[in-house]
């Protein structure tokens, strides 16, 4: 269903339409009220005149009924006179009348005589007639007036009300149009300045002379600019960090390649070539981690990852099976514990990355022959995961800094990017999981527990 008048898209058009239709409506209502009021007053006034004229005629007739033969037609004295007529009857005879009055009484159809006002048709015209009679009932007076003349007066009054409106409306259109145009000027200016902005110009919009109604919008816009600037800044920092971090493995690959090229000894060349391969693996792993971290951040900012009920026990067991060959290669005892299925709402892919990172860290940073235990069990009705090892553990200061991008524990022989913990932290945050890092009471090394944030025993841990 389309409305009769489509609301204009432009603020200017909308204001113009509203103001003008409002003004026109008020004017028309005023004209209508004036019409009714004037008609009422006019009727009262003219009826009063008719009654008074009739009374005069009745009084006058008392002394002049004998003037027979002198002619009964009174002279015309005014240009309105043809529209007014009177008749005086004396004892049933027409004694006096105005020139335009008919011969018969202006009583119309109905009873022969009734005092008071009535409206009658005479020769096709509507007349307002007042009838009166003398005290002895021998004199009857009719005073009439064409109703059409009242209409003419009314129309004249109405014309004088409506004419100025007809003239004023176009002027009003111009005036309102100009005023609205001036009023929306700041909005237009704002639009232009926003359109001309460079994409990287994220400084806030100045309030300046903008109307107060627009301040909430400008505030929201500035808030958005600020958030975009923050996002951009973190992206830039991330790119710079990533580039820096990639420099070291690339430098290592290059160095090992040059060593291999210049090495005559077969075993040493083999060692350098092995180093090149290791460097490539490291760079690839770093790129992999950077990508998953940036994907995670993007996902967090754009939309939440798809969540479903995930069987944590099955997932952890799968990850342990995946990493077992590495642990066996280091002669480590990697064990999995989990008697009851534990589900938690989450994204299976992300949770697998989290568990893999934790177990991988344990394998990586525990020495050969170490024991590593991965356990999944319900705690207070929530699924909890614990990864423990018998490795060297972590100093309190280092524990504090875990998860800082590219932070690496000093003196660790293993090559790492320091990104694994950043990834783990983010995934935990997305899932509302808390990470508890501390010494392992069972194995003596490091213990990492992943529990639900609202777990009541969190404070005690």
């Amino acid at each position: 269903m389309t409305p009769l008048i489509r609301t204009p898209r432009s603020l200017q058009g909308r204001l113009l339409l509203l103001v003008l239709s409002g003004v026109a409506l008020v004017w028309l209502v005023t004209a209508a009220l004036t019409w009714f009021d004037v008609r009422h007053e006019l009727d009262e006034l003219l009826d009063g005149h008719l009654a008074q004229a009739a009374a005069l005629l009745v009084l006058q007739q008392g002394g002049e009924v004998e003037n027979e033969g002198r002619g009964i037609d009174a002279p015309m004295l005014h240009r309105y006179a043809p529209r007014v007529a009177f008749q005086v009857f004396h004892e049933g005879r027409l004694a006096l009348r105005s020139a335009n009055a008919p011969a018969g009484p202006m009583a119309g159809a109905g009873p022969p005589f009734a005092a008071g006002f009535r409206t009658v048709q005479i020769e096709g015209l509507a007349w307002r007639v007042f009838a009166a009679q003398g005290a002895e009932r021998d004199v009857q007076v009719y005073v009439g007036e064409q109703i059409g003349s009242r209409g003419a007066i009314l129309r004249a009054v109405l014309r004088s009300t409506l004419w100025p409106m007809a003239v004023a409306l176009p002027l009003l259109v111009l005036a309102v149009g100009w005023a609205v145009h001036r009023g929306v000027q700041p909005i237009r200016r704002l639009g232009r300045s926003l359109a001309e902005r460079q994409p990287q110009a994220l400084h806030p919009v100045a309030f300046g002379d903008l109307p107060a109604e627009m301040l909430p919008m400008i505030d929201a816009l500035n808030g958005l600019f600020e958030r975009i600037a923050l996002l951009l800044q973190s992206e830039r920092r991330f790119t710079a960090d990533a580039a820096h971090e990639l420099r070291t493995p690339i430098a290592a690959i290059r160095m090992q390649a040059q060593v291999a090229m210049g090495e005559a000894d077969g075993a040493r060349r083999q060692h350098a070539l092995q180093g090149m391969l290791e460097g490539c693996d490291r760079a690839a792993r770093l790129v992999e981690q950077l990508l998953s971290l940036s994907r995670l951040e993007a996902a967090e900012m754009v939309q939440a990852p798809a969540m479903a009920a995930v069987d944590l026990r099955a997932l952890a067991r799968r990850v342990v099976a995946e990493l077992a060959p590495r642990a066996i290669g280091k002669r480590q005892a990697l064990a999995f514990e989990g008697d009851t299925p534990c589900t938690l709402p989450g994204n299976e892919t992300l949770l697998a990355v989290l568990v893999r990172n934790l177990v991988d860290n344990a394998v990586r940073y525990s020495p050969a022959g170490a024991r590593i235990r991965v356990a999944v069990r319900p705690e207070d009705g929530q699924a909890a995961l614990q990864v423990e090892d018998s490795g060297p553990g972590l100093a309190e200061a280092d524990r504090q800094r875990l998860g800082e991008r590219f932070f690496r524990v000093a003196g660790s022989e293993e090559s790492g990017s320091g990104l694994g913990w950043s990834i783990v932290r983010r995934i935990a945050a997305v899932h509302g999981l808390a990470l508890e890092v501390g010494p392992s009471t069972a194995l003596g090394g490091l213990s990492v527990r992943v529990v639900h944030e609202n777990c009541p025993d969190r404070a005690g841990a």
Partner: protein
Amino acid sequence: MRILLAEDDSLLGDGLRAGLRQLGFLVDWVRDGEAAERELRAQPYEAAVLDLGLPRKDGLAVLEAIRRAGVKTPVLVLTARDAVPDRIRGLDLGADDYVVKPVDLHELAARLRALVRRAHGQPQECLSVRDVVLNPAARSVRRAGEPVALSAREFDLLQAFMLGADRVLSREQLEQQLYSWGQEVDSNAIEVHIHNLRRKLGATLIHTVRGVGYMLQRDAPPP
């Protein structure tokens, strides 16, 4: 030439050590800032390659500390930080050169040789004393234009003498210049090498200062 390498990345450190060794440097490798500072203060290295992002003590802090302690060893900063303010800060704190990773092995070696030369007030590429000319880059020695075949140790010893010409060097100093960590030092190895050098380059080049050490004399003694 014995240098200290301070690099925490195991793969890069391993490559740098192997590569620089190929090019004739004696390389001691430390993996953290505290060890780097300790070694630089304790040993007379010809030069040091210092990574900035070192654990325990940041490379710049190490640099500041050793310069304040009066260590004059030329330091080449090798880092992933390439922002201009970082470079300026590094150079202001006493770095002699600033190289951004990744670096070419030969360029790094050339820069180190240049640093060592400059530290000894010798701007030319080759060291020369009398009719002996030593080319550190090519690791070659000529006497009166004729090539002289020297073993690696003899070459290093001659380079140490030529860099410290007209100064008496003790046997301990020479040993420190000649052997990196973990290398066994024979009790009379220095004497054997000096004997060989005298045989190949003339008896008057290196003097024995009894009870103190040895000295290479720049000017030939009057006949």
